[in-house]
């Protein structure tokens, strides 16, 4: 999936993957996609829960490759 911005949250643990994703999506233009790379296994559930409970963002996909979890978040409105 093509992303407009990338956030490296590898090595960070709860709550930082969610907190940094929130800060990064605040700077995102409407329609743009942020790719978040994390190694925290809890980030799969946490980022899905965060996106579900936060207006203006949408979780497009989550993938797992070895120890790295990649999440794609789009800003839908401001």
């Amino acid at each position, binding site marked *: 999936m093509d992303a407009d911005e990338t956030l490296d949250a590898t090595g960070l643990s709860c*709550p930082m993957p969610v907190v940094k994703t*929130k800060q990064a999506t605040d700077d995102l233009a409407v329609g743009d996609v942020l790719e978040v790379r994390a*190694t925290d296994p809890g980030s799969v559930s946490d980022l899905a829960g965060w996106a579900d409970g936060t207006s203006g963002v949408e979780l497009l996909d989550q993938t797992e490759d070895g120890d790295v979890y990649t999440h794609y978040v789009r800003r839908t409105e401001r």
Partner: protein
Amino acid sequence: MSAESPEPTREELAARVADLEARLDDGDDADEDQPKLSIIATKGTLDMAYPPLILATTAAAFDWDVTVFHTFWGLDILHEERADSLELSAVGNPNLPVPNAVAALPGMDRVTTHMLERKLDANGTASVADLLETGIEMGVEFQACQMTIDLLDYDADDFYDGVTVGVGAATALRDMADADVQLLV
């Protein structure tokens, strides 16, 4: 409205509608739809500093309206000089692999604290000061209880910039009554 009141003119009605619409717009700015979280933080040990800070920053990431009221040793989390040197108590902590008789030896709190600090760092867990500064940046309202500032001989200037001082139990209670989630840590 009494029976004698004259009927309002079209202009008066139009002015009233405009006034009410303006008030509705003001209400929108207050983010009244967002859930509110109110936490009371009473502990100042390294382990107990984390739950309020993690929940506060995460709630801020959800755009919630967050207040953390710090009282007693919870004040140390907001203290510029003390926030980075919070300790883990070795005595009376059955979760540590140290018997109480050994834990009571001088310097043991330092040893167990160092152990936890190393584990936190290796785990990629943010420091207490980092979480606090992140929370302030994200708009979390951190409050320092005035009565315990005086009790512990602290000073309003001892706390991080952005921390609210000069507040007490009534402020905390009003905040809790207004909140959707209330926690005592």
